[in-house]
Every structure is written in structure tokens, then in C-alpha cells.
């Protein structure tokens, strides 16, 4: 599914990712760890196709329509409600039975009661849960999660534990997750990559 060799990324003279080799088979669960500034977010941006490598080769065996991406930013409009945000992405991704899928995700991430509130009124943790709903909405084959536990409270983290365990069970779905807390995901991970 993902094959990267000698991946490097530079912004001007600054090298933010150096000589990374990566192999994640279809259905794999890769855990990416590393200190702040080690290039975890850059690696996910390369995998998502949002940035191009400065050197090395990268093959991601899925179309961009099949990628789900959770970034540091929630990638939702704060002026719109949760429902309106998910409706927007549901239309763009041509999600079948959109309303049912949105309703199910909002229920699963405990946001149903706040579905018609503007995201600007959400706490950081609620916004993160909405961002997870957005990333999962189109049932992606490749899920890229950048620090998914950030801003989640204990209850939110338990919800995400349950969700990731379910996702990791899907034989065809590939996950690449960056984290500062590898112990939490260690039981699920099948590949590990430590960035220096």
C-alpha cells in the first residue's frame, strides 16, 4: 500500500524530514513516533499528497478520494454547525446514504446533541471529535491521523480507543498514526517508525 524510500523534505535550506524509509502493507497499522520537529506531520502531509517530497520516492496505492486525513487543525469551518460541515464533505465525497452516515458518526462520537451548534461554540475536544468524524465520513481505505488524542479528555480518548480498535480490525483499511503516547496504541500497531 505505502512504499517510501529515502524520503526527504526541505523548505528552503531547512530539512524537516531526512532519509525516511517506510513500508506499510494494505491493512497495516503504522505508528509514527518522534520528538517535536522530527517531521511526523510532514510525513503525513507527504502521504496525503498535500506536499511533495524533495528527494526519494513515494508510492501511496490509493486515490486521494480514499484518504482520510486528521491534521493538527480540525479542517472544519468554525462558522458552520457540525451537521453543515459534515454535509459539505459528504456531498463533495459523494457519501452514499449521507444523512444516515453523518447521524451514525455524530452518535458514535457523542456529538449528536450538539449537531446544530456552531463549531465556534465547541470546546477543543468536541472540535477534535468532529474532525475525526470528518476524516472517517467517507470510510477511507487509508487513514492518516496526526496526534489524534490531542485535546481529547478521558472520555473522548476512550471513544477514540474503541474506534481505532474497530478500524484496525478492518482487513483492507490502512492506518498511519503519529503520537507522543505510543504505549496507548502499542497493542494495535503492526509497524513502528521512530523519526529522529
Amino acid at each position: 500500500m505505502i512504499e517510501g524510500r529515502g524520503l526527504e523534505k526541505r523548505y528552503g535550506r531547512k530539512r524537516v524530514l531526512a532519509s525516511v524509509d517506510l513500508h506499510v502493507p494494505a491493512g497495516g497499522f503504522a505508528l509514527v513516533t518522534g520528538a517535536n520537529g522530527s517531521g511526523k506531520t510532514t510525513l503525513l502531509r507527504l502521504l496525503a499528497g498535500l506536499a511533495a517530497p524533495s528527494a526519494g520516492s513515494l508510492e501511496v496505492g490509493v486515490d486521494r478520494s480514499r484518504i482520510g486525513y486528521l491534521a493538527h487543525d480540525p479542517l472544519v469551518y468554525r462558522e458552520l454547525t457540525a451537521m453543515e460541515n459534515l454535509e459539505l464533505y459528504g456531498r463533495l465525497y459523494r457519501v452514499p446514504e449521507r444523512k444516515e452516515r453523518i447521524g451514525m458518526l455524530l452518535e458514535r462520537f457523542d456529538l449528536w446533541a450538539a449537531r446544530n451548534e456552531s463549531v465556534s461554540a465547541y470546546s477543543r475536544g468536541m472540535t477534535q471529535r468532529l474532525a475525526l468524524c470528518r476524516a472517517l465520513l467517507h470510510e477511507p481505505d487509508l487513514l492518516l491521523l496526526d496526534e489524534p488524542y490531542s485535546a481529547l479528555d478521558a472520555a473522548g480518548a476512550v471513544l477514540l480507543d474503541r474506534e481505532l480498535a474497530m478500524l484496525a480490525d478492518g482487513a483492507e483499511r490502512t492506518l498511519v498514526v503519529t503520537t507522543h503516547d505510543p504505549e496507548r496504541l502499542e497493542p494495535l500497531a503492526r509497524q513502528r517508525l521512530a523519526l529522529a
Partner: protein
Amino acid sequence: MRYVADVATLTRKDLRVELRARDTLPAMLLFVLSTLVVFHFALPQGTGDEAAYGLLWVAIVFTALLGLARAWVPEHEHGVLDALVLAPCDRSAIWLGKALATLAFLLVAQAVALPAFVLFFAPLDATAVVGVLLADIGICAVGSLMAAMAAASRSREVLLPLLVLPLAIPLVVGGVGAAISPEGSRYLLLLLLYDGVFAVLSWASFEYVVTETT
């Protein structure tokens, strides 16, 4: 058909965001009205209508710039542009949705500004009004592309006018010409040609503005 549906979805989203935030349209309305009021008092008595038509275009271009400066702010403040770029729609649909929403704001501003101009300064005939509409399309087409480029920069407030104003010169020439020349229809053709060429160029190049290729 899918492309049209995506553009409609994105335009509707922009209009809804503005309806909630009220960041752009009220500012454009206040700006264009206050500019015309200032011009009304600044223009000496007995000045010909030609000067007034020129001032109308100053107000139109800077009102459009105000709208364009805000156009991509929601996308850049929350990183939403990444999510739109990842979505499986043609990337030019993102530009077209933004251009149409900005055009809607500009048309609303002018629905107030043009009657105010007639009240304060001089009459506008049908050719002049069509000139304004054609120039609006050109400004929004090229301006939405330039605003997307400028939004990625830290100095976007400075960069946007530097990018847009030189490209708006043919629109000002065409618009003023349509208002004052006895052969106004020739200037309308110039505006039509500009709209066609720059809309196609902007449509084709937007993908390279929002994606990294090297």
C-alpha cells in the same frame, strides 16, 4: 453535472459562512458608501461627469479588493483548504465556488453603490451598468486566484493589491470607456474578452496555486 454540483455546494458553503460571520459584506457596503460620500465632498463643484465615473471605478475596485482580502480567510485560518484540496472534486471547482460567492457579495454592494452614485454624481446608462457587471466578473475571476496565492503569504494584505491592481487596469479602462465613450459597446467587447481569457487562465491555473508539485 458532478462539477456543477460541486461548485454549487462550495458556493452555498461560502454564502452560508458569510451569513453567519458577517465579516465581508457589511464591510464592503460601508466602504463603498463612505467612499462615495467622501468623493461627493472632495470633488469640486462644476467638475464634469467624466471625473465622477473615474471615481466610481476607484470605489468599485477597492471594494472588490476588500472582499477578496477576506475571501480565503476561513480556509486559511482553520486549514480547511487542505481538506478541500484532498476532496475528490476538481480543484478548479474550489476557485469557481469562491469566485461566484465573491461576485454575489460584490453585486450586493453595487446594488447599493450604483443608486448612491446616481444620487450623488451622475446618471448611468445601460451600457455603463453592463460594463460594471462585466468588470465584476473579471475582477472576481482573476481576484479569487490572486487572493488564494496571497492568502498563503504572511504579507497577504500588501501582496493582494500588488497582484490584483495591475491586472485590474484593463477592467478600469473598459468600465470607464463603456460609461463615457459614444462607442461604449466596443469597451464592452474588451471587457467580455478580458473575462473570457482571464476566467480560463484562472480556472486552469488554480490547481497549481493550491498544490505542491516539486
